[in-house]
């Protein structure tokens, strides 16, 4: 019942959200090599640290980004994606 704060809907229990994984930037598919592409597809940054993650508030259909410590589970901040934050 951890609390996550949706930028639109405010603080709500975690079960009301869908986890969308780490924010990752797609390399230009036209220029990358096959193995660079595979790296993008399959490899992850699983090590301890602060992650920028996609979260989705199910009831309202709101996608947003949370900065979260994947060891302490502390959520540093949440905000709407504005097109630039992914890079």
């Amino acid at each position, binding site marked *: *019942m951890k609390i996550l704060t949706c930028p*639109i*809907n405010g603080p*709500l*229990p975690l*079960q*009301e959200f869908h986890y969308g994984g780490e924010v990752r930037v797609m390399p230009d598919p036209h220029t990358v090599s096959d193995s660079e592409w595979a790296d993008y597809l399959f490899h992850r940054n699983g090590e301890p640290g602060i992650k920028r993650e996609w979260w989705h*508030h*199910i*009831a*309202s259909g709101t996608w947003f980004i949370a900065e979260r410590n994947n060891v302490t589970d502390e959520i540093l901040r949440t905000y709407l994606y504005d097109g630039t934050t992914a890079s």
Partner: protein
Amino acid sequence: MNSLLKRQSPIQHLFDPTVGQWGELAQAAVVLAFDSEEVESRALQTLALCDVSALPKLGIKGPAAANWLQSQGVTLPEGIYRTRKQSDGSLVVRLSDNEFLLQEGFVSQTIQTLSELLGWGQEGIARVERQEASFLLAGSRALNVLAQTCAIDFRQAPHDRMVMTRIAGISCRVLPTETESKARYQIGVDATYAVSLWESLMTICQELEGRAIGTAIFTARGTI
């Protein structure tokens, strides 16, 4: 629209057509009252659940939506998720800067008129189909029902702000309203989940000595 077809609440079949007093609301058959007015207005004070899905809804979005609504004499709420009750009893919710949800009052015709004016849509305004079911939860024990189904502290919720959350495991839109300084909660839900939600809420209401009531009591008042 005067179609050959009747609109239907997604839970209409849960009510026995031979029980209570039936009538019509915006081309939909509704239960006006299950019991005497005295019984139902007492329930309204303590704990009552009413299916108000029949009230027509209209969703519109797009850059021109706000202006168009205002030009039609609709008073818009400021701020996202804020709600604004119109003088005729109809209700306007601002879903975002340029998207609105409108719900007809019990006696008003506003929304239906707007809907026909809008037709398939206009430049800068798109029509968003809004067929969700809505139930009205009222009475002093309404908060107990919410406490058993939802993780939000509605004692703190402002009476003019929509809440999007989960009730009994189902995504819902909750519109707290205040009538005669009593909090009431209109719960909007995807029509396909309506039966599940109604049954869960009704079970709890009955445990708390609440009951289902008809729409007549509101038609009399003209508003939720």
